[in-house]
């Protein structure tokens, strides 16, 4: 008779403990939120249960003697190019539970990462390159609607002075770097990291996005560097919130889960989250799949202007969508509906929780989406009416540079910001037990993130990327990020088909 599930030993990881190095100090026991390590009273030593390991590497990182190593479980099924182990294991799990496969973080599937097939240009001989360490270099970025034309009034006859701008400019978000911290809600990640993002954004002169979980009262003071988000659950949305930030974002879709809503699991709803979201402690926070007041572009227009009315047209309104098949036409509709910013989230974008089937099979890569949207808006003569933000799978500063060359005004980074504070992409964010203290509201775990240290790490990352972007710009003979925007001549493709190059609007290397 079976006394354990037949797939119990088909676990993903193996904990290797070096017996000579282990001093039985129990640090691993205290660090592991999944109880993979335990104290064996009979044998008087620390032992472990491989089946409980999620591969977060927290114990390995903190083991004082370096006795631990987390490895993939070497147990191998008969090789089969079609039935890869992931599909087999998923079927075993679903047969046991009848459950929908749930996943965290961005999709790990092997779809082309076009950043890796795009190469940047550099100046040689002519148009000399610029050294940003000694020469001015401009990364300043303004997000918002730009006028079709600007008009000036000359000084009155006989009077001295400068011409005066008479065109009324739309509100803008001013950024010192073309990078922002992407929407990660208070609830999906904890309060300490919201404090860290707010402080880092303020120090850097960029913005962070609140995500859909509202804004805690104590963070209103960082408003100048905050974009407040309004999603279908409308958690924490009220007049004061809408007027707290430098911009308002309507979240329609998310790259990791296009077309569906969200369930922030009850495990993550503690007192503070309950207060901000106004839902009972321990209940799931459910975000409907659509905004039920938006069933059309006209309805979107209605919400955009409801938000503009509520904020007296003081801040730009962004609309965030997932990158899907008809993204260019949708973006055009969004711009025509009055959005000042269109944020597009590619299919590799992160999430705290998404059904694995959706995350891994729905949507399109951000590179193709940005290129298609930028081209469409240019063709229609409305590119100036809205800024474009690229999100989902920005791994390094070169990705930012390539996104901007493809037509983005700025990038949102989420996963990269979490990696900066220790995330190892184990993808178990939905359990609420993140041993790194990131995707958890358990006070014992969340205190592992010190807001000061986390803010410093996030700020360090953006500064480092800023330097690198300046170097890459300088190498191309450009002294301003503006000159790179939509400048696809600075990109060449390697190993792409003519269709892919046509969509990306780039030539093959060598041409």
């Amino acid at each position: 008779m079976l006394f354990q599930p037949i797939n119990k030993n088909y676990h993903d990881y193996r904990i290797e403990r070096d017996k000579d190095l282990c001093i039985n100090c129990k640090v691993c026991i205290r660090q592991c939120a999944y109880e993979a390590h335990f104290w064996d009273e009979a044998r008087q030593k620390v032992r472990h249960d491989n089946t409980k390991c999620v591969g977060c590497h927290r114990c390995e990182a903190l083991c004082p003697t370096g006795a631990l190593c987390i490895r993939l479980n070497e147990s191998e099924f008969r090789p089969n190019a079609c039935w890869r182990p992931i599909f087999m294991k998923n079927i075993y799990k679903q047969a046991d539970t009848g459950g929908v496969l749930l996943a965290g973080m961005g999709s790990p599937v092997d779809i082309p990462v076009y950043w890796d097939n795009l190469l940047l240009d550099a100046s040689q001989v002519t148009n000399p390159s610029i050294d940003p360490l000694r020469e001015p270099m401009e990364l300043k970025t303004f997000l918002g609607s730009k006028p079709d034309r600007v008009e000036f009034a000359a000084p009155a006859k006989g009077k001295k002075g400068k011409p005066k701008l008479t065109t009324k400019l739309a509100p803008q978000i001013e950024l010192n770097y073309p990078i922002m911290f992407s929407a990660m809600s208070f609830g999906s990640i904890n309060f300490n990291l919201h404090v860290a993002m707010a402080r880092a954004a303020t120090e850097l002169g960029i913005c962070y996005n609140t995500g859909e979980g509202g804004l805690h009262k104590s963070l209103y003071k960082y408003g100048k560097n905050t974009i407040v988000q309004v999603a279908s659950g409308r958690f924490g949305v009220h007049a004061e919130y809408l007027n707290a930030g430098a911009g308002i974002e309507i979240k329609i879709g998310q790259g990791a889960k296009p077309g569906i809503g969200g369930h922030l699991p009850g495990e993550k709803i503690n007192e503070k989250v309950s207060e901000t979201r106004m839902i009972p402690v321990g209940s799931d926070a459910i975000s409907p799949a659509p905004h039920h007041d938006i069933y059309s572009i006209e309805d979107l227009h209605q919400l955009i202007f409801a938000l503009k009315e509520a904020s007296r047209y003081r801040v730009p309104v962004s609309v965030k969508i997932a990158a899907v098949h008809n993204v260019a036409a949708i973006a055009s509709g969004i711009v025509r509906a009055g959005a000042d910013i269109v944020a597009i989230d590619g299919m590799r974008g992160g999430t705290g929780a998404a059904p694995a089937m959706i995350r891994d099979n729905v949507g399109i890569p951000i590179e193709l989406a940005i290129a298609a949207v930028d081209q469409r808006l240019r063709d229609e003569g409305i590119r100036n009416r809205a800024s474009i933000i690229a999100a989902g799978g920005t791994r390094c500063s070169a990705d930012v540079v390539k996104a901007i060359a493809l037509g983005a005004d700025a990038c949102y980074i989420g996963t990269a910001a979490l990696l900066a504070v220790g995330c190892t992409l184990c993808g178990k964010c939905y359990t609420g037990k993140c041993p790194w203290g990131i995707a958890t509201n358990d006070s014992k775990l969340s205190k592992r993130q010190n807001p000061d240290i986390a803010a410093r790490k996030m700020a360090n990352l953006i500064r480092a990327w800023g330097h690198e972007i300046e170097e890459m710009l300088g190498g191309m003979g450009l002294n301003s990020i503006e000159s790179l925007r939509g400048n696809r001549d600075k990109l060449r493709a390697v190993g792409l088909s003519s269709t892919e190059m046509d969509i990306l609007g780039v030539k093959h290397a060598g041409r």
Partner: protein
Amino acid sequence: MATKTRKKLTLTAGETYYRQFNEKIREAVDQGVTDFVLNDVNSQRYIATGLTGDLHFQVQGVPGQDMAAFMSGPTIRVLNNAQDGVGNTMDDGLVVVEGMAGDVIGYAMRGGRIYIKSDVGYRVGIHMKAYMEKLPVIVVGGKAGDFLGEYMAGGIILLLGMFSDKPDAPVAGRSLGTGMHGGVIYVRGEVPVTQLGPHLHSQPCDAEDMKIIRGIVADYAKELKLDAKKILAESFVKVRPFSHRPYGNLYVPA
């Protein structure tokens, strides 16, 4: 506490575009006007949207979409029908509509009261929320369309089914309370089980419920000059969530 001196203003909407009209209202509020009479309103959108504080509006004519959206505090009385989106994500205050209202009334409402005399459309009161003393209330005197109280996370919906233009319609459309995980929906009389969302069923109201209902009905009747006794002459049923985590068992870690 010293009472703030009231300052009155009558504005005529006529054919004024909503942006100019609402800016006029906001400027008047900035100048200390507290009591507005808005005449000849012709579906101008966003009336009182985003406004806060102790303000009063009397609206003659039909206000447009998203009236009182994100509103926090003011009182609005509409002497006629209202369109869609009344009290969208409303935070506090009172909206009284002396006629019917359209779809998505009180979407994600966080507090305050919305009293509709007659019928309402689809998806009314969806995803209402509550926290501590903030308890939103919607009362519909007539009948409701489909998906009343969908995703409801808190607050109270009271459906009377009395002052309706739809004599043959059931008191509520299909999928009442579907996905609700907090709050309560009270219905006067009975609600057919066919109209309820999956796994939900109506239960009789107990003394505690009746105390709450009587309080709400008294206020509603006063605001709309109705006979509270007549409203309370019938019994009431309640629909509550079957779980705070209706989808808690849906998933397995991949």
